[in-house]
C-alpha cells in the first residue's frame, strides 16, 4: 500500500497548485511499470481527501502503455506489460522510454474562485 504515500504527494501538489480554491478534479497519469495499483490509488484518494480542499473532487486516471525504442531497427512501440518484443524486428532488448510515470497532469477548479 505505498499508494497511500504517493497519493499524499499528488494531493499536496494539487492543493498547492489550486492556491486556496476547492478542487473539482485531478487528472493523474499512471504508467503500467510504475508499480502502482490503480484501485489502491483510488482507495487512497477516497481515504485522504475528506476534510481537505479536494473533498468531493473527481479522480481521473489516464493509463499509459509501456513505450519502447528498439536499438536495432529504431522503431518506437508500445506493448502490453510482460511482452516487450519489437513488432518490427522481434528483438527483445528494447529500451524503455515511458511507462514508469505517476504524474499529476492537471487540476480543475471553479472558474469564479
Amino acid at each position: 500500500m505505498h499508494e497511500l504515500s504517493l497519493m499524499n504527494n499528488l494531493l499536496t501538489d494539487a492543493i498547492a497548485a489550486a492556491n486556496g480554491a476547492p478542487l473539482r478534479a485531478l487528472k493523474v497519469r499512471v504508467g503500467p511499470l510504475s508499480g502502482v495499483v490503480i484501485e489502491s490509488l483510488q482507495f487512497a484518494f477516497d481515504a485522504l481527501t475528506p476534510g481537505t480542499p479536494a473533498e468531493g473532487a473527481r479522480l481521473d486516471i489516464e493509463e499509459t502503455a509501456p513505450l519502447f525504442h528498439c536499438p536495432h531497427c529504431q522503431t518506437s512501440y508500445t506493448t502490453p506489460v510482460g511482452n516487450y518484443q519489437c513488432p518490427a524486428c522481434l528483438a527483445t532488448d528494447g529500451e524503455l522510454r515511458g511507462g514508469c510515470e505517476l504524474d499529476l497532469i492537471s487540476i480543475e477548479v471553479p472558474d469564479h474562485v
Partner: protein
Amino acid sequence: MCDHCGCGHPHDHSHEHNHNHDHSHEHSHNHGDGHDHDHAHAPSEPMRTIDVRKSAMAQNQRHADQNRGWFRAKGLTAFNLLSSPGAGKTALLEATLKHLLPHAAAIVGDLQTENDAIRLRASGAQAVQITTGATCHLDAHMVLHALEKITTDGLKFLFIENVGNLVCPASYDLGEHRRVVLLSVTEGEDKPLKYPVIFHHADLVLITKCDLAEAVGFQREDALKNIRQVAPRAKILELSVKTGAGMDAWFAWLAG
C-alpha cells in the same frame, strides 16, 4: 532538522495545506464512503484547468539523486537487493560481505526487528538496520539517513537489502547503481510473470537456493524463459549460498 534534506527527521511528509478551508462546499451530502462521485457541482459551474505536470516521485527522486551524489563522492558502488520474503537476501549478503571484507557494508530494511543487521554484523562488516514500521518498502529518504551511520573508509560496495516484497519497492529509486532481484527455486517458475514490474527493472536476476532445485521439482528452462520474457535486458545468474555453487560468478559480476 536534518542537514542533508532539511527534513524534520525522520519524516518530511509535511502538509503545507491548511485544513481550515474557509471556502464553502456547496454540496451537503455525505462523502463518507468516497464512492459514486457522479453528482455535478452545479452542472453549469464554469471550470478552469490548471496544468501541473509533477511526478508523485519527485521528492523521492531528489533524495535518490542526493544518494547517488554521495555514492559518487565516496567512490562506492551501491546495489539494491529485492525479492519476496524468504528468498535468501540475508543469507546471500552474509556470504557476500564476508567475501568482500573489509570493502563492503550493508543497509537492511525490515518492518520490525534488528535481527538481520545483527546477523550481518556477525560477518564482521558494518550493517545498518532501517525499521520501516508499517511501510512496505525502502525509499530514498530512509536510505539517506542510514548513510549517515556508515563509515566509508576503504569501502567499495554498499548493499541495500530492501523489505521483502515484490510490489512496492519496485517504484522507489534509492540512488543505487544496480538493481538485483532474487528468485528462489522454491517460489515457482512463474513468479516473474506474476510480478513483471519488479523483474523488468532488474539489472541482474539471481536464481537462489539452487541446491533445492531437484527436491522441489524446479523447472529451470521455464524459469529462464519467464525471466527473459519480462526482463529481456537483465543478466541471469544461478547460485546456492549453501553449497557455494555459482558464487564466483556473482562475485565477478559485482566486481565488473
